[in-house]
């Protein structure tokens, strides 16, 4: 059974499937109830599952994650929505010192199967704090899994896999791509869906590897299309922690070049680790250093500057050119 869904509707359908599958699954956050979330990702769930399972919480992110941890300890599987990336930070303590460490602290006696959904990234013309790409804070925190999605299929299955995981998952949703549409095969059995742990070769190629995730996949594919001089292999990372290095390393060893791109700022962004690690593993195969095409090391600017701030098609192509200049 396939249907054409936007990413946002696909997450919604995935949430619904998870809630139907397991009565312990809860949704909670600011405005997720009657309103269905500011992006309507939880649309209809309040009506169908009731206020006990779709909880409009007080406006307090630490409280949301902290109480969700408590509910998870009681046996629930809460799916928390943080309204925008920039509003995650009040929840940092609960996420980093409690959520990420609870299993290890308890030597495995406690599981906290909690999903934190965060619409992230820029490009929507918003005011401050609505366009952040905080993924590197999460990927540097042991104990968290970090997933992101780039298409409705991954949206639908990814959220369900995140919810069934016994580990806490940060589920990053590329907000400027919420309305991208594609076919989703909702008929597949859950176990047959491609695991979000694996990276996906979104487009095979031979001359250089172009690595991206989330909102930048679309741009990366456009770049591969636009670059008629080279055959670019595009990899969609999907899982930011842990990273599927075998897939990346195999590709880079074939192509000899890696260009990677993300909206997060350069310094200490997810690309730094990937560049360092791939260089270690492919030292004798790399014909150029890993080239990173990212946002600049400045706070996200006022929206009239974001087209310059965010890596776009031209900057990705420029990065590819730089890689081939070696």
């Amino acid at each position: 059974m396939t249907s054409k869904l936007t990413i946002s509707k696909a997450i919604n359908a995935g949430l619904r499937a998870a809630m139907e599958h397991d009565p312990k699954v809860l949704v909670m956050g600011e405005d997720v109830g009657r309103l269905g979330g500011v992006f309507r990702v939880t649309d209809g769930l309040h009506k169908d599952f009731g206020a006990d399972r779709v909880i409009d919480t007080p406006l307090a992110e630490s409280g949301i994650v902290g109480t969700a941890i408590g509910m998870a300890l009681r046996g629930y599987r809460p799916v928390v929505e943080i309204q925008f990336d920039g509003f995650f930070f009040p929840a940092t303590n609960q996420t980093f010192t409690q959520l990420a460490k609870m299993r290890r602290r308890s030597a495995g006696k406690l599981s906290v199967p909690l999903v934190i959904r965060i619409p992230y990234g820029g490009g929507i013309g918003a005011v401050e704090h609505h366009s952040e790409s905080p993924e590197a804070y999460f990927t540097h925190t042991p104990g968290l899994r970090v997933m992101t999605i780039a298409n409705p299929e991954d949206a639908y299955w990814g959220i369900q896999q995140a919810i069934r995981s016994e580990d806490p998952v940060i589920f990053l949703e590329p907000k400027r791509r919420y309305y991208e549409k594609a076919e989703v095969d909702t008929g597949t059995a859950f176990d047959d869906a491609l695991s979000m742990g694996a990276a996906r070769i979104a487009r095979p190629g031979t001359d250089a590897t172009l690595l991206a995730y989330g909102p930048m996949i679309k741009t990366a594919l456009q770049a591969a299309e636009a670059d008629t001089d080279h055959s670019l292999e595009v990899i969609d990372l999907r899982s930011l922690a842990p990273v599927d290095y075998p897939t990346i390393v195999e590709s880079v060893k074939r192509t000899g070049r890696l260009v990677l791109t993300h909206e997060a700022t350069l310094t200490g962004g997810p690309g730094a680790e990937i560049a360092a690690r791939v260089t270690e593993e492919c030292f004798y195969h790399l014909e150029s250093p890993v080239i990173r095409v990212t946002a600049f090391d400045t706070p996200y600017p006022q929206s009239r500057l974001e087209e310059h701030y965010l890596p776009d098609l031209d900057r990705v192509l420029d990065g590819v050119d730089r890689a081939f200049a070696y």
Partner: protein
Amino acid sequence: MSDTTAHEEPELIQLLTPEGELTGHPDYPLEISADEVRALYRDLVLVRRVDSEAVSLQRQGELGLWASLLGQEAAQIGSARALTDRDMAFPSYREHGVAWCRGIEPEELLGMFRGVTNGGWDPHEHGLHLYTIVIGSQALHATGYAMGIQRDGAVGEDGSAVIAYFGDGATSQGDTNEAFNFAAVDNAPVVFFCQNNQWAISEPQGRQSRAPIYRRAAGYGFPGMRVDGNDVLACLAVTRAALTNAREGNGPTLVEAFTYRMGAHTTNDDPSRYRASAELDEWKAKDPILRVRRYLENNGLADDAFFASVDEEAERIGEQVRTQCRALPDPEPLEIFDEVYAEPNVHIDQQRSEFAEYLASFEGAGAEGGR
């Protein structure tokens, strides 16, 4: 079980009824001239006009977003007109009426919503900090600023005070409550002014707090009261008393202005999804402007010419808002790298110059991005 929660109906401090009758209040005597009331009326009308103009500009694509103050004019004008030049205000993001009173030009106000700046005005010059979007954060800044005032010895006669603005939703945030506590423990000269407009986006006040908000203060050891937030005179009188108290070294107060968000949360929002229109009708009867007009009319304190002149001025300001907004220049791309740091930073400088080179590489190639 001994229950320390008082469940009586909270008192609502009101000086001017919706019908325009000046009742006054024994605890908040307000000496106010007709001139002053007319000035308040003018403020109310003009900020409403600035606001509605901004909503239109957003619809026309000139602004990315707007957070309307519709319905909250009295709370903002009343409280802000209680401030002196020596005081400092820390707004949230909807305090256009406060900005008005602090002398902010529409162009400075609109910049952030148009996306040409993240700030807009000089906080030191205006005694108004920048808008703060992350809910609750500014309550702590306000408290710290007030702790600075204390350390400057600027309490007592001719003292200074701080006012922190936030919404009902913000009272759930840890930062707001930590601010209450820091202010109480340090007896800092700060007035916490909560505009309880009944909604935090789609969540009604009952999802944020079980007790009336003003009662929170007593738990931290300072006074709190609820004022009719649609009554500009009550807001003025109560805020003035609280500020005076703060300036004189008697510490913080929480003022809950009971009001209503008559519009959408922002231009992105669709309140029909979560609230009944009957509620809005109820509050329309308590409109903050109407009652001042009635008072002025009923008591012969203003004639048609006055009302007409205010309306004309509103027209002119509407025009000014439109013109200034459209004239706001887009920032230059390289401004991305400005004012990240005060000190020289080679790292940022390098990214700036690389990007400048990159941009230059398109020149001559026709349109930017014209690869």
